[in-house]
């Protein structure tokens, strides 16, 4: 297999002391961010992104993806020990993880969580290793209409399949696309929506917005909560680890099922949260004694953690192969790629082999190193929670400001970040989802370019989006997904009408 050879090459790129050191630093920073209240994967990556600006792209992505793995591991620590889910997808982990900790089986629960996250991501990384090159070489044949159709599909599936109120997803998405359009028009060179302001000439930088939306707004939201907590941090002994691992084969059905759900939902946008709950619920449904769930059953930790990490990892597949992020964090990583001067999309696999395979290899290595690291250092990280939030909050604010400024060396961007912080705070509280906004902001220009290039090519005929089987079926699928709730309801009522007739 060609993929394996390239992967080996990727490992060769990685195995230098410098990269390994960066990896460890990234993991430690990531776990730190994951354990701190109110911060999680996307926030951590957004805040720490500026650290990587001066690195070469491979080191930078290795460090960032390790921050991401670290944050995922860190989230499990707080969910189990303190019943505080670091992120929405850790919620399902608390159902059985926290009861286990209360029964004095914290070490067991933590080992289970770390091991299953490891397995989940491993399965997803293997999927990426073999599927991503295939998809990208297929996508190399795409022209502008096909790309626009794929972007449309991404946006429509967010609207049609998202759990939030539809109009709020539409608001979030169109706002993101509009803000992405501010500044110089890339096709004609004309200025748009700048209102003669020199600051708006540059346009609204994606990363500035993200740092505000995810960093500053999280601080404001966290301050609203009561920050007192109480819990036990247990050291993990080798004996516990081995005994959990020895039982692992017993749960292979749960692990396989959750990995599968996670991979599937991760590739479709916005799936990690759904994946963890679905993994948990299915494990419960198929169990013989369902009542024992929620009272500290180890399967209740395995199922959601595996699914959440499989989906968090496989969300990187569409990002690498097509340039379309499957999650908020993937969108931020994509923004990073652009800062380092790489053009995300199928060409990445051709033009930057070192980079892509270095990243994929770092996913394998990062997970192994991360697993060892968290298993050995849990008590240290758990005690980070003792640091008062009054000390952590201003430090995060400063890091956010540094990040926002460093992107374009503009003070205006710090103000913009603050503005986005307020927007993020208000949006979150009134239920306008931020993920579509992030995605729209990062994809906006490329979606518009694809649309205009296909229009120019076709002489302004919208039929170009149905001009061949491939683009036609993607476009049609997009429209079906957009109206999915309506179609679903229509089908429901039709079957209900038919049923009495049959009976």
């Amino acid at each position, binding site marked *: 297999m060609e993929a394996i050879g390239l992967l080996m090459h990727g490992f060769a790129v990685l195995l230098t002391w410098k990269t390994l050191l960066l990896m460890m630093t990234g993991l430690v920073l990531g776990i730190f961010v994951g354990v701190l209240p109110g911060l999680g994967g996307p926030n951590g990556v957004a805040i720490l992104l500026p650290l990587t600006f001066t690195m070469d792209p491979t080191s930078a992505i290795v460090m960032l993806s390790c921050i991401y793995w670290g944050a995922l591991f860190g989230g499990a620590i707080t969910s189990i020990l303190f019943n505080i889910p670091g992120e929405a997808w850790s919620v399902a982990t608390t159902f059985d993880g926290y009861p286990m900790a209360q029964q004095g089986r914290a070490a067991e629960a933590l080992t289970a969580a770390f091991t299953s996250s490891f397995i989940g991501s491993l399965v997803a990384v293997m999927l990426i290793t073999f599927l991503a090159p295939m998809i990208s070489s297929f996508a190399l044949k795409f022209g502008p209409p096909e790309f626009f159709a794929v972007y449309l599909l991404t946006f429509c599936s967010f609207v049609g399949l998202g759990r939030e109120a539809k109009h709020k997803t539409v*608001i979030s998405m169109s706002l993101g696309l509009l803000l992405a359009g501010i500044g110089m028009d890339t096709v004609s060179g004309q200025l748009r929506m700048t209102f003669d302001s020199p600051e708006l000439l540059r346009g609204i930088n994606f990363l500035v917005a993200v740092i505000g939306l995810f960093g500053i707004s999280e601080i404001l939201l966290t301050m609203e909560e009561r920050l007192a907590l109480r819990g036990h941090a247990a050291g993990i002994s080798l004996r516990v680890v081995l005994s959990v691992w020895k039982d692992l084969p017993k749960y292979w059905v749960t692990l396989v099922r959750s990995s599968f759900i996670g991979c599937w939902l991760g590739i479709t946008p916005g799936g990690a949260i759904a994946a963890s709950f679905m993994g948990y619920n299915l494990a419960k449904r198929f169990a013989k004694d369902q009542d024992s769930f929620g009272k500290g059953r180890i399967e209740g930790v395995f199922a959601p953690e595996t699914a959440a990490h499989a989906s968090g990892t496989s969300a990187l597949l569409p990002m690498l192969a097509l340039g379309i992020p499957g999650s908020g964090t993937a969108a931020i990583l994509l923004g990073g790629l652009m800062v380092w001067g790489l053009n995300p999309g199928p060409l990445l696999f051709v033009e930057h082999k070192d980079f892509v395979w270095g990243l994929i290899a770092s996913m394998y290595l990062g997970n192994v190193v991360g697993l060892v690291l968290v298993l050995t250092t849990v008590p240290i990280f758990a005690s980070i929670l003792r640091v008062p939030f009054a000390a952590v*909050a201003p430090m995060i604010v400063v890091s956010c400001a540094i990040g926002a400024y460093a992107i374009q060396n503009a003070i205006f961007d710090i103000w913009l970040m603050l503005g986005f912080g307020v927007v993020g705070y208000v949006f979150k509280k009134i239920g306008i989802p931020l993920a579509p906004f992030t995605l729209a902001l990062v994809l906006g220009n490329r979606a518009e370019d694809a649309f205009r290039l296909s229009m120019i090519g076709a002489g302004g005929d919208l039929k170009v989006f149905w001009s061949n089987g491939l683009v036609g079926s993607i476009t049609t699928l997009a429209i079906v997904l957009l109206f999915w709730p309506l179609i679903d309801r229509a089908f429901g009522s039709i079957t209900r009408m038919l049923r009495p007739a049959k009976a």
Partner: protein
Amino acid sequence: MSNTDIEIVVEDPTAPEANSPQVVSVRVVDVVVSLLLLALAITLGYDNWRTGAGWESTGPQPGYFPFYLSIILGGASLYGLVAAFASRREASESFVTQAQLRRVLAVFIPTVLFVLATQFLGLYVASFLLISGFMRLVGKIALWKSLLTAFVFTAAMFVTFDVAFDVIMPKGPLEAALGR
């Protein structure tokens, strides 16, 4: 590694009380946000229409794509406006209580001051002031701890960004006096 448990207890003395009266309901905020978004959609839509939202011989004009997006945004906010008025759930839900607002402002106002200070004193001095001031005044942490933490953090940031990674931050009179 030993098997001893480490107990972790963190108190939050200034936590917002649970029974604090609400300042504003979710419905009111939702209505206001919808109106703001509608106004934004109209402004941007007008600007794009002025730029040119039609078709040229070569394809869509620069304003075409954003113009139609403004219409979508406007439509969705109008719908949101109606939905917010109709929603009983949002009317009964609290957006923020007085105690919560006080805590949020306790971090937001210092942040605004920090950004202002960055413009005049440079980022490093401003961050020292923010961290020490916030820890001392909001967190009620001992003065020496606050000053020490702020100094260590700011120095670490300076070494990381300015010295090691060469990312240049805004600087003020202090750095000028020290010759950096």
